[in-house]
């Protein structure tokens, strides 16, 4: 059985005059201990997916349809009380901004002990001991002393490591990390990613890593979902998607990276912008920007199909493949 199984998940936002669809019928699975990346441009629906999985959507957002099976149990319709047994306990979330999770007026120790004691029958001394162990696991120097410190007394990199320690506090089976290092410097980002990878591997924790950085996804995950305008347009093994993307949008994203073009030469750009939720085109959402577009793309929505090791939602994937291989042999 999958650890997580998402089926036809649709999330909408109730606006003043109408409702808009932020996630449109998305389905995917995550095996125990598997690491999955979710990539896409700003506004594609990555964070909304994370919030929906944690059952953390707040008005005006709501789950309109679909199932979220966590170890076989549907959490999409669970009450807050039921969710409390799962959220933070068996499923944890790491946000881009550590201060979303950390309480500025409590010490690190108070916050960790409080979380532990809320979910486990432990004495304060026992909880403190576990906290120290977890801080040591994330390479926080002199962890005993850190327990007495407040979040603002720590550097950004250290705060993010503490967040990871807190996410791991109750030995969850799944961690959802939403751009966990975007606010940090490159050298610190690399340390934190390596740490997260190490901890997930050694504790067999499943990871959903939300990011717009294809390099990060490539290093951290086994499988990847590519999102565009609230839909999954390509899914498969990360290696396949990076090396041989099938969807024109994924191809465009990868080709637009500076490292794909000789220094100083014109970069390959995707024309236009991602549509806003209120103006998602009929048919294929990528059609106004797609160089391979055909008439039926503008009217008929492409459904995901298995193609060359990946699942891809594009009408023209066969033709593209044929043209590309002709180009290469010519």
């Amino acid at each position, binding site marked *: 059985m999958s650890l997580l199984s998402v089926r036809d998940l649709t999330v909408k936002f109730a606006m003043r005059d109408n409702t808009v669809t932020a996630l449109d019928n998305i389905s995917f699975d995550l095996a125990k201990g598997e690491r999955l990346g979710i990539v896409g*441009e*700003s506004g594609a629906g990555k964070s909304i997916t994370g919030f929906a999985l944690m059952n953390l959507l707040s008005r005006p957002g709501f789950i309109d349809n679909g199932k979220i099976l966590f170890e076989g149990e549907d959490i999409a319709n669970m009450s807050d009380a039921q969710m409390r047994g799962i959220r933070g306990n068996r499923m944890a979330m790491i946000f881009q901004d550590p201060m979303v999770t950390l309480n500025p007026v409590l010490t690190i120790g108070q916050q960790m002990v409080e979380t532990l004691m809320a979910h486990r029958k432990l004495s304060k001394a026992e909880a403190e001991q576990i906290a120290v162990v977890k801080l040591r696991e994330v390479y926080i120097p002199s962890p005993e002393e850190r327990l007495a410190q407040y979040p603002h007394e720590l*550097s950004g*990199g*250290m705060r993010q490591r503490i967040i990871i320690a807190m996410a791991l506090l109750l030995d969850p089976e799944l961690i959802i990390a939403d751009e966990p290092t975007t606010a940090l*410097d*490159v*050298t610190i*980002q*690399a*340390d934190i*990613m*390596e740490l997260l*990878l190490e901890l997930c591997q050694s504790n067999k924790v499943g990871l959903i890593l939300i990011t*717009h*950085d*294809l*390099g*990060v996804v*490539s*290093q951290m995950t086994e499988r990847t979902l590519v999102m565009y305008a609230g839909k999954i347009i390509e899914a498969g093994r*990360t*290696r396949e998607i*990076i*090396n041989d993307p099938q969807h024109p949008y994924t191809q*465009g*994203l*990868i080709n*637009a*990276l*500076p*490292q794909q*073009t000789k*220094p*100083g030469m*014109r*970069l*390959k*750009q*995707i024309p236009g*912008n*991602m549509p806003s939720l209120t103006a998602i085109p009929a048919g294929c959402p990528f059609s106004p920007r797609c160089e391979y577009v055909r008439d039926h793309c503008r009217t008929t929505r492409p459904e995901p199909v298995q193609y060359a090791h990946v699942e891809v939602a594009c009408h023209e994937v066969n033709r593209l493949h044929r043209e590309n291989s002709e180009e290469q042999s010519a």
Partner: protein
Amino acid sequence: MKDAMSDGPLLELKQVEKRFDLDQGFLETIKMRNGKVIREKRSVHAVNNVSLKVDRGEALCVVGESGCGKSTVARLIAGLLKPNAGEIHYDGTRIDNQSRRSMIPLRKKMQMIFQNPYASLNSRMNIQQALEEPVRYHNPGFSRGEVRDKVAEVMRSVGVDPSWSARYPHEFSGGQRQRIAIARALTVDPEFIIADEPISALDVSIQAQVLNLMLEAKDQRGLTYLFITHDLSVVQHFGTRVAVLYLGSVCELADTATLFENPKHPYTRALLSAVPQLKDDRPNHIRLRGEIPTPINLPQGCPFQSRCAYANDRCLAEQPRPVQQPDGSMVACHAVEEDRMVD
């Protein structure tokens, strides 16, 4: 007409220092030390002894971690800040000691683009107004028609439809706004552009649009850039030379190709190894030990000592000076100088 002066570098920074004082009031500065009352001012040492040259047609990229002084360098050059010591020369003329008034002719030659396009665009002006303003300012003799033509020409040159000129900044996407900000900078035909993280807030596909625009301007108008970014793949693509900054000091300065092929300073090496590669699934970065010191209490000796695996007693005592290497790069590191780094 280029005069004889233009043989030298377009821009030169000579041993520039910038400190920001933290304690404003007199009382804040009174401290007790060993039983004696002393007056002590704390300050941020944002830029320390920085020397740089930018030649015409070059794109010098400045990289480094948050707080290392990149934006301060940009603002010093643009005349928005005055250095505490050192000199800044533009096209052979010293500019850091000039009044705002005498800087006006220079304003036209030097334009600045910020990370947040809202910072370069006034939200209450539509695009036509935003673009007209600098054209009028720098060309007081232009007729209405000439102004309008110039604005339309500039909009087209950055791929924004001139018929959108009545729209306001919030009606554009981030990439369009940044392109308009660049258009605004280009309206006055500058020769030098200071760009402070101009694409960091944008998505990959939009980054490509904006970067292409800047490359085009470089090739077609012979523009010179000082380009600040933390994205090394952008540096590799756009930069002709790179200055790596750490805690306000230049630790390595080299041609882009040389820096990426053969980084020498321990910090540069760690930085390059930390970039996640697209097609390499083994993270193999150099782990830095220690925490980043703040520029408030700068250590004596090498600024990188607290995180450097090669630090020794000399590094703690003596600040390394930039030394020219056989391949032309400048490196400020004792270990490199003493040739005691193992490859």
